[in-house]
């Protein structure tokens, strides 16, 4: 993404943001037209599945072209420089959650299903680095604490169908234990580790805020 410091770009493109936006719309319209190429159009009296999407795509493409035209003629906003760190790290964190919450076939391999026990802390620890201020220990404390709260809230209290932990982990408990019991003990353990991590490390002024962050999830 080119960075321009002046407010009005020089050269043939006078409104780069408008041109980029227009091109995006044209691209999306072209994609839609390509995807609907095999669908029958039908007549007004009996419309086929392709008619409405195709008309919308044409409309979208036309608005895109007008925007490109406006950007070429009228001076407009430049494209701003932005950091890729946020989007890349956040998307990575989301993908991690999606792929580890339960086994997910990905090409030839299947990802391990870690349940919320694994997916929760992983997502928070990875996602936390989306901000340049992210610190590993802080993210870890936050991740474990939030996961403990999420387990109690979504699993114990609301009984939502979310895998909580991998089967191998559940098998560690003696047979007589109920699912809720396992859940509560696990949440307790997570919270305990989080508190221990908080207390062990070097004291920073932000440490106390970490606690506030946990209690918020409850």
């Amino acid at each position, binding site marked *: 993404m080119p960075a321009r410091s002046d407010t009005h770009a020089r050269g043939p493109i006078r409104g780069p943001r408008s041109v980029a*936006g227009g091109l*995006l*719309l044209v691209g*999306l319209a072209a994609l*839609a037209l390509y*995807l*609907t190429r095999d*669908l029958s159009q039908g*007549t*007004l*009296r*009996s*419309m086929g*599945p392709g008619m*409405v*999407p195709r008309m*919308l*795509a044409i*409309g*979208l493409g036309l*608005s895109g072209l*007008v925007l490109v035209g406006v950007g070429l003629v009228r001076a407009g*906003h430049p494209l*701003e420089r*932005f950091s890729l760190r*946020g*989007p890349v790290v*956040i998307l990575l964190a*989301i993908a991690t*959650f*999606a792929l580890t*919450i*339960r086994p*997910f076939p990905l090409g030839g391999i299947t990802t391990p299903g870690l349940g919320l026990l694994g997916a929760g802390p992983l*997502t*928070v620890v990875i*996602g*936390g680095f*989306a*901000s340049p*201020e*992210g610190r590993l220990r802080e*993210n870890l404390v*936050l*991740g474990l604490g*939030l*996961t403990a709260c*999420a387990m109690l809230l*979504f699993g114990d209290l*609301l*009984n*939502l*169908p*979310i895998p909580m932990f991998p089967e191998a982990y559940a098998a560690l408990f003696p047979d007589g234990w109920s699912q809720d019991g396992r859940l509560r003990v696990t949440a307790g353990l997570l919270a305990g580790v989080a508190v221990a991590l908080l207390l062990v490390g070097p004291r920073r002024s*932000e440490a106390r*805020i*970490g606690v*506030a*962050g946990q209690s*918020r999830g409850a």
Partner: protein
Amino acid sequence: MGDLLANLALGFGTVLQVVPVEVPGLGPVPLPMNVVLCFVGCLVGTLIGVLPGVGPVATIAMLLPITFKFDPTGALIMLAGIYYGAQYGGSTTAILVNIPGEATSVVTTLDGHQMARQGRAGVALGIAAIGSFVAGCVATVVIAALGAPLTRLALVFGPAEYFSLMVMGLVFAVVLARGSILKAVAMILLGILLSTVGADLETGQERMTFGQSFLSDGIDFAVLAMGLFGIAEILRNLDHTEARDVVRQAIGRLLPGRDDLRQSGLPILRGTAIGAVLGILPGNGAVLGPFASYTLEKRLARDPSRFGTGAIEGVAGPESANNAGAQTSFIPLLTLGIPPNAVMALMVGAMTIHGIVPGPQVMTKNAGLFWGMIASMWVGNVMLLIINLPLIGLWVRLLKVPYRLMFPAILLLCCVGIYSINAMPTDILFIGLFGAVGYALIRLDFEPAPLLLGFVLGKLMEENLRRALIISRGEMSTFVERPISAGLLLVAVVLLVVALLPTIRRSRDEVFVE
């Protein structure tokens, strides 16, 4: 009149109903379950809604799963509570931090935050709550009074009328959107286009699904909403270096004094009237309420220069309009089955999950649910008054949590929330995708709100368009030959022309700049 009272009685009966609840250790205990749900909804709604950058749409999408456990009436009452809580949370953030949680609380930042800086945050929050309460009371009666007649109106609506009504709604959304009209139109087209993904409703043929089975049911609304309003918002906030301006001054007393009340009495009533009327319009007219109320109060004020420096009327009027609009926007949904904005679309999703098809038949088939939900609006307003004011200290502390600790929590809540709706990992991947798309759109000056509205209405529009044309044997003229449909389209055209007129355009820009 008698009907109105009887219906309200039914509603309050439903809300206040006492049912035995199994409490561990105590056995069955009689509890007014719906009141409890409304209370919990308001509380968690405020808790999430108060977080900067989390508006009502993202809040409801995140919290939707927590209502699954309950019966339909309870679930919808709780969701309505979450909605009011999120709304009020947004106003709290606007006053205390100068960050509007969503479009409707933008106006509140102007004078509300100035009041907070003068050490009158408590009074600002107090008058906002009182104004909202008054507005809520009036709006509840308005809904109860208009519900029945409008439902009868819905019965004379055919597919052509429905289609034209939705066109009018979308034109409204275009006119109300900030920035370029062309961009708003493009976003609406894109939204409708996205709604056509999935199996065709008549032939069942797959459309734009890339051959993937999880797309054949179409894109889930909650997934799109959470991506565009939850994840994209995180990405946008990460761009700004942290400069949150939490009020350092004392919150001050909460109850407005006699002078404050005298100054805000009429603005509250005027704001309520404006908000209630605009809220009924399809196409998210509720957004306009606070702007209109603020402009009106400024015009009517003896000394307009006070506005922007902490005038209490500038908080009281718009906040009342905001809440009145938030409630009356239930009317198109409950009577015609058309969601006028993204929040109501989520309500449709919630109703569908519980097996209720929104529309005029709800009032006859599920009378208890219908009137219960309306009565719960009033109860929800009382709750807000009771819980929010004493808890202001907590919200202030919450707002001081740095964003780097806040966004991972929002992220996790989004992931867990969306997974528990359909138990599909692909849904989680899609909130990431839509988040990235939404972020790109925001960076390119497109507004995601019209996109979402287009998506909400898209399926219904296509269905009604096709049906209308089958009935008319392919004659497009059916839309202008039927008088109601023609009238609605005429309003749409007039609106669009007026919005495009240069003079109006300039003042429209001014309103949004203000």
